[in-house]
């Protein structure tokens, strides 16, 4: 019971500390948020080590060798922790560190009060109908509004109006649109004015870092290559999942192996259905990986403080170029050079066919070149447009709530998150299916000759 309560306290404190640090980092200074979070983390580690020490000293096996070892390890950890705390106090503001340090204790006190209050008879009478609680919430919200109005009015003066309360931390004019308190989608909107890229997007981890350390070279480097870092991270994640799922295959699969097998089997059946039994299995690994990778990249932007790499034209062009080069390679390998030229010329077998070669050859060549462009632009446009839609509605929700001067907003982008789920899946599917069909067009078709002969025969008949 006691240890379980402590575990719950740890979890709650981590959440509270993280959210408080994010709000402070957005509205005051990134460094202040970092201090609060460091204080919380320090306090939590301290609590964990103390708990370990007490358990090791008072547990049932306290006289045995491993318990003594654990106690000594905990004491050593505590000493290290105090050195780390001294270093933190040297570098970060002490008041904010102390505030973060107090968060777990505040959580413990509140939990204890809740344990006392919740079983009492007064509380049960209070919660019998929902109306008293609604009244209390309304009174609290009105009170918070009044207090914060007075506060921001005193700070910025009454003449400047609602814009003054929400200026960017650096003092520039770009309004910082923050996250609704529920936290569906990450953080503040990046400044449009400072960056050379025009449109604003949701801030991700790396832009937040770059804003926190505007002078550091490594932060700028991370911000500059954020798309590549995110896509590499996703690829690594998928690799790890695949390795974990296939490391120890069982006849009766566990949940992870079962899920991965389901995905692989579905993709295999789907792609072989299009490509045919002869050539299908050879290209399933490439195309299936393409689908899973693009889907993961599309969905990654819906995680708070993450960004979809596919909402950058660089990534989609790279993917489309890979598909283009591979399909040309397939054409050369399966058809040979002469066969490839023949394919590009429209398989001329009759006098009319040869007469049309000067027309068909450039049309086919331009069609081949148009394929990667259309693949890249379609994926980029859809994912980028989806991001822009979410940003637009999130800022609209904040503008609507602007009169309260609170860092809150209506989660107006909520319905569009589901739309984003749909478009992400659909665009990954479309990219994969179109690549499959480009491969299919390059492969030698068994029924091609018969079809051509059928056409000529019917032409003769006419």
């Amino acid at each position, binding site marked *: 019971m006691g240890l379980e309560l402590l575990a719950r306290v740890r979890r709650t404190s981590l959440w509270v500390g993280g959210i408080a640090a994010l709000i402070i980092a957005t509205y005051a200074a990134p460094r202040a948020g970092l201090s609060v979070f460091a204080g919380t983390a320090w306090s939590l580690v301290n609590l964990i080590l103390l708990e370990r020490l007490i358990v090791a000293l008072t547990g049932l096996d306290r006289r045995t060798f491993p318990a003594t070892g654990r106690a000594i390890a905990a004491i050593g950890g505590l000493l290290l922790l105090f050195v780390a705390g001294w270093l933190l106090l040297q570098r970060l503001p002490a008041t904010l560190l102390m505030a973060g340090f107090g968060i777990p204790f505040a959580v413990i006190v509140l939990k204890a009060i809740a344990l006392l209050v919740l079983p009492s008879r007064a509380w049960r009478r209070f919660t019998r109908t929902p109306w008293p609680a609604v009244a209390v919430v309304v009174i609290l919200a009105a009170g918070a509004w009044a207090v914060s109005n007075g506060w921001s009015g005193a700070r910025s003066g009454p003449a400047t109006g609602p814009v003054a309360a929400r200026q960017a931390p650096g003092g520039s004019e770009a309004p910082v649109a923050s996250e609704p308190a529920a936290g569906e989608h990450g953080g503040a909107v990046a400044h449009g004015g400072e960056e050379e890229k*025009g*449109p604003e997007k949701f801030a991700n981890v790396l832009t937040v870092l770059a804003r926190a350390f505007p002078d550091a070279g490594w932060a700028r480097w991370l911000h500059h290559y954020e798309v590549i870092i995110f896509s590499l991270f996703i690829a690594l994640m998928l690799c790890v999942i695949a390795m974990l799922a296939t490391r120890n295959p069982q006849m009766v699969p566990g949940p992870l192996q079962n899920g991965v097998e389901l995905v692989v089997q579905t993709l295999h059946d789907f792609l072989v259905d*299009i490509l045919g039994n002869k050539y299908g299995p050879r290209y399933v690994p490439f195309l299936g990986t393409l689908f899973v990778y693009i889907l993961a990249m599309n969905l990654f932007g819906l995680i708070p403080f993450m960004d979809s790499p596919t909402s950058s034209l660089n990534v989609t062009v790279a993917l489309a170029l890979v598909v283009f080069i591979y399909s040309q390679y397939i054409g050369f390998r399966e058809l040979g050079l002469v066969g490839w030229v023949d394919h590009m010329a429209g398989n001329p077998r009759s006098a009319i066919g040869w007469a049309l070669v000067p027309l068909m050859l450039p049309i086919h060549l331009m069609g081949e070149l148009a394929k990667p462009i*259309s693949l890249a*632009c*379609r994926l*980029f*446009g*859809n994912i*980028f*447009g989806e991001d822009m839609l979410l940003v637009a509605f999130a800022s609209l929700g904040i503008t609507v709530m602007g009169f309260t001067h609170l860092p809150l907003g209506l989660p107006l982008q909520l319905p569009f998150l589901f739309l984003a789920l749909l478009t992400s899946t*659909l*665009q990954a*599917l*479309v990219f994969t*299916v*179109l690549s499959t*069909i480009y491969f299919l067009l390059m492969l030698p078709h068994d029924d091609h000759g018969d079809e051509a002969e059928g056409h000529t025969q019917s032409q003769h008949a006419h």
Partner: protein
Amino acid sequence: MDFHSALGWGLPVGIGLAAIGSGIGLGGIGNGAMQAIGRQPEATAKIQLAMIIIAALAEALTIYAFVTMFLLKGSIAG
């Protein structure tokens, strides 16, 4: 009318025109697919696959207009 204001008028109108065109196209695709499914419900999977591909091709035209808008948006303010 100078270049910037011409662009400022033309970009939204262009996106709207592209959206009208692909909207009509998507309507036709959906109409055909639904009729085909109604006539042959057992071929639903194949029809849906083809419908999604063609719908993506039709929808891409609006997306091209959208991308063009974002590429040229910086020049409006000029």
